[in-house]
């Protein structure tokens, strides 16, 4: 049960039940859709990009508690950040959820902040995609891609962690 509690921490359950920044974003100038074909989860991320900075961000979609909470907490953590900051944060987050051996150091990094509650995900390899869906979608929106992203493609092309993710 301890690993299960580690996965479903109070903060995650709270964001599942009351997702923040949920719904369309009026005045958004970027938008992307993400899809997890294995479980049918969908996410749409709306962005208001001002220059290089994420002025505002919201999301919509249906998914499990991990994907919903991850999307919700992601919107809180990237608001106000530059693209570079977002990329760095994603990198750290992805290492955390895939159980990258270097994660111990990353865990301590202050930049991760509340997102550290997702550390339990790495014990559940099949759930990595759930936690990563919103992030892959956000990155697609930042890159201005108009094709929907799929966790199948994203999680199998992003390096050594993917053996665990599949």
């Amino acid at each position: 049960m301890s690993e299960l509690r580690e996965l479903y921490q109070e903060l995650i359950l709270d964001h599942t039940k009351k997702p923040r920044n949920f719904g369309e974003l009026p005045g958004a100038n970027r938008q992307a859709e993400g899809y997890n074909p294995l479980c049918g989860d969908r996410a749409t991320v709306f962005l208001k990009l001002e220059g290089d900075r994420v002025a505002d961000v919201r999301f919509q979609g249906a998914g499990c508690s991990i994907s919903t909470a991850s999307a919700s907490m992601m919107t809180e953590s990237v608001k106000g950040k530059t693209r570079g900051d977002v990329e760095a944060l994603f990198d750290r987050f992805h290492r955390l959820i895939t159980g990258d051996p270097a994660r111990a150091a990353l865990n301590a990094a202050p930049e991760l902040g509340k997102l550290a509650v997702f550390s339990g995900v790495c014990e559940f390899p099949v759930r990595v995609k759930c936690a990563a869906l919103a992030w892959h979608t956000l990155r697609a929106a930042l890159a201005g891609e108009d094709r929907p992203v799929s966790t199948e493609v994203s999680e199998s092309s992003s390096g050594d962690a993917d053996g665990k993710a599949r």
Partner: protein
Amino acid sequence: MSLSETRPAEGAARLDVAALRADFPILAQTIHGKPLVYLDNAASSQKPASVIEAEREVYEAYYANVHRGVHTLSMRATDAYEGARGKVQRFVNASSVKEIVFTRGTTESINLVAQTYGRRNVGPGDEVLVTGLEHHSNIVPWQLRCEEKGARLRVATLADDGSVRMDEFDALLSPRTKLVAVAHVSNALGTVNPVRRIVERAHAQGVPVLVDGAQAVPHLAVDVRALDCDFFAFSSHKMYGPSGVGVLYGRRELLEAMPPWQGGGDMILSVTFAKTTYNELPYKFEAGTPHIAGVIGLGAAVDYLSAVGLARVAAHEHDLLVYATERSREVRGLRLVGTAPEKAAVLSFVIEGLHPHDIGTVLDYEGVAVRTGHHCAQPVMERYGIPATTRASFALYNTREEVDALVRGLHQAVETFS
């Protein structure tokens, strides 16, 4: 064919489930400290020791390629391989071993028909008729064929309880229909289709019928001649046999008339660069070295299921389904998806406010293995306006105590997320 038809008469001996469980070595383990409760049988079933032993014996005692050598091992392997074909023939009551083609699985069996019979007989403006409860493997091969040929895929939709609207099916049957392809039992909902009636209606219009029997063969006695179907496809791995092996039963006249599918060794009589003469049935459709040990393992699975008796299996599983259906009502917010009167032992459901993946993760921590997702039947999910369900599917080795463990796990999931 329906569940009620396969129920034994009053007083028929019940299954000694405790003894049967001892036949399945994998069941005697714990998951996260809890006894394994394996309720993902519709995805794949576990294997009895006799099947494992049969495969092991092939490799340890008499493995060689089949239909090739004059040496002793090759003859022994060939005898065992062809012996398995005979077992399968009797298992589904086909009239001849020539009607039993070994494939990689149900999916390959259906693709074989789509790419040979379908390629030759489905043309522009023609139609292939399926139902709303099909697995992707009985949709996509026909879509591919229809797209290529300018033909059209027609669908008889589902009523709210998950049974096929037969009036719609009848209305869709027309002179344009070149083939009917239906599941015997729905993997996502458990619905048992009225296959005999479907075949009657189709044959009345001269239309052949392919039955996807993957979910039927482990749960109810199948008699292809009584069903009168033209093709019947199924997999070994869902009926306690090895994975990677499947069967296509085909009516002999149809198989004879069909062009070969894959070319290669074993499917030929003679080859010159000018012309190849194809082998007789069933070898015409078995190009290349087959999954020899797997087929022999399937033969052992047929022996096992036949010894247990499908009528008793069906009765036991029906009892589990009734019990599980009843107990599921205790779970707050649970709604069953698929409540057709004729159902195999599949319990598909959603719980208000809970995502199936979260339910699956909590259940796994209780040792309970279920399937969560769209079950390779996205049109079924769309029909009910849901992205996914949680599915518990039962086999001959499951018990009421395991249903209790499932229900305990579900209560815990509800508690965790409420």
